[in-house]
């Protein structure tokens, strides 16, 4: 095969970067649109939508939409609720699902294959189909709290967290990852006298950074974008998450500038979380890709 001349290589590199830049722009345009228009009055925003001005910081720019968004809705409460519910669910989910996966991969017990199949089968059931039965269940569940025995979980944080902790996808991710870890590590630890808990805690989990990051990001997105479930189980404003809060801005005359400001505000935690775990997430995707 003939070697590429330095000139050809340069052209190829330039084309490759051009394509990548174009793809990046396509993905970044919605975010840019949101940010730029959050700074414009609604009339200007509507006038700009049909031109490139919609993506540029031009015209009458101010932070008024942000101020008005905070006046219209308790934005801080909604963001706090979503971050709390999402944060607790992600941590609990990683712990419970990794334990389940550990049990499926490393422990030998009767029926684990069938049970794993059943768990994986839940992946094809859309949440909407079980929302009503689940609502009926949680509305009658008991809870022992500071006020003693209470019946019904509606209008609480726990109703937004507990049903979402364990899920088939996260367990599947951990199972696949654990299967690819060298079994010699586990065997050596057991020979050295480590308990199963110690194997999980000191051998497996320290090696599971990429899958933890992937599971965390996927779970974070699911939880942060929750709409239907909180809509039907939370009637009190003090427990509402960000996506239900978005409805506050859709009045008869939609204040689009405020919508963009609100969206920009609620996107910040997602971006921060993704950037924090970006390296591990990419490492996980890359390792999956190499094997595939």
């Amino acid at each position, binding site marked *: 095969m003939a070697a590429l001349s330095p000139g050809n290589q340069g052209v190829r590199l330039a084309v490759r970067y051009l394509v990548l830049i174009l793809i990046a722009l396509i993905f970044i345009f919605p975010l840019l649109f949101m940010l730029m228009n959050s700074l414009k009055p609604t009339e200007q925003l509507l006038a700009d939508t049909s031109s490139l001005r919609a993506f540029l910081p031009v015209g009458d720019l101010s932070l008024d939409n942000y101020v008005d968004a905070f006046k219209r809705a308790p934005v801080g409460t909604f963001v706090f609720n979503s971050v709390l519910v999402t944060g607790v669910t992600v941590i609990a989910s990683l712990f419970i699902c990794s334990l389940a996966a550990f049990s499926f991969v490393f422990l030998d017990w009767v029926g684990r294959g069938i049970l794993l199949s059943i768990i994986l089968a839940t992946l094809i059931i859309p949440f909407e189909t079980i929302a009503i039965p689940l609502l009926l269940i949680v*509305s009658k569940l008991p809870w022992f709290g500071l006020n003693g025995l209470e019946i019904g979980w509606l209008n609480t944080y726990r109703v937004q967290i507990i049903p979402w902790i364990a899920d088939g996808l996260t367990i599947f991710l951990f199972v696949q990852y654990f299967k690819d870890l060298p079994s010699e590590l586990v065997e050596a630890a057991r020979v050295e006298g480590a308990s199963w808990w110690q194997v999980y805690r000191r051998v497996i989990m320290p090696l599971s950074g990429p899958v933890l990051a992937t599971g965390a990001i996927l779970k974070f997105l699911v939880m942060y974008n929750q709409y239907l479930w909180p809509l039907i189980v939370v009637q009190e404003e003090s427990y509402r998450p960000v996506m239900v*809060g978005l409805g506050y801005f859709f*009045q008869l005359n939609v204040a689009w500038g405020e919508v963009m400001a609100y969206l920009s505000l609620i996107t910040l935690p997602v971006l921060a979380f993704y950037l924090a775990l970006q390296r591990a997430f990419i490492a996980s995707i890359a390792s999956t890709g190499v094997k595939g």
Partner: protein
Amino acid sequence: MRKLALLAGTIFIGLAHGASAETALKMWYHGAGNEVESKLINQIVADFNASQDDWSVSLESFPQGAYNDSVVAAALAGNLPDILDVDGPVMPNWAWAGYLQPLPIDESVIADFLPGPKGYWDGKLYSVGLWDAAVALVTRKSILEKYGIRTPTLDKPWTGAEFNEILAKLKASGDFEYPLDLGMAWTGEWYPYAFSPLLQSFGGDIVDRDTYASADGKLNGDAALAFGEWWQSLFKDGMTPGTSQDPADRDNGFNEGKYAIAWNGNWAATGMLKVYGDDLLFLPAPDFGSGPKIGAASWQFGVSSASKHPDGAAAFIEFALQDKYLAAFSDGIGLIPATPTAAAMTENYKEGGPLAVFFDLSKAQAVLRPVTPGYVVQAKVFEKAMADIANGADVADTLDAAVDEIDSDIEKNQGYGHQS
């Protein structure tokens, strides 16, 4: 003895305290995010709580888009509050489904109310609203003068033929992107609310109101077919933007001069007045043969079936029906106050007020959407049929399919409790 006296004293204080304790009532409202509306409804709640010692109402507001789903979910979970607000056409469904109980108020209080805000189902009053909403043809005096078009009145609205000629004339002028804006970008309840009165003016309807057992002959009869052909011609001939209309154009197109006439509601009127001032005209719906018609009924208050204190809930609703609150809501959010006396107290709807015509339109032309629990399904079927016909679907086939869907739903629900 001293201990006995102390005990008796304690019991007496306890009883006295118990006798004066207020009973808590919960209320849900659809206006979260609307600063003006929230302020008004909170004011009514505060005034009611201060006016007596028997009941204490606490308010929970929801975003309008999520409200109905939240109520249905709460009904399933047995978690309904005492007082609900409900959109007028949805009320029969909630009453039939057992979410609401009849409203035990003195009906003489609402004798002067417009028909739209009174929510009757199965012969019983279930809900009452503080306001109504109305739709009109909105245009400019200067346009009518320029093109030599007659100004229609309540007594002598445009006929269907006259309306078509006007649209053709405006279209031929080339001065506008479209001569008419029907608001096709506003999907959802706007379609049956704004467009089914046009069908009714042709002599058709969404369902047969005599029996509520079928849509056959009403939604696919000769009158409905004539309406469907006319409806499709509006889009085919480029008289009005279609279903792909940009929502921004719906909001601002008329104000920017893109459209000569808009079919729009009184809630949008104040924005238009700001742009065109005295040049603006609100005109009655055209008469396509069976009289000019517009939609009616907006949000109303009712008592949930779960309430153990319907008397307290009704006391609150009756309290809220005072003219001063009707007028305050109207001034605040631009809707039509339910009574003439309240209208006279408002800036917009008092005699000679810029929007007074809407009160007259509502009184003279308003037709309730079908008063049946099946309306919630029928509205969606109608919306789809209107969009399909606008997009070029065969009129007769589309209306026949809509009738089949509506009839099948009625059958599935055993007639929705209507006595046939």
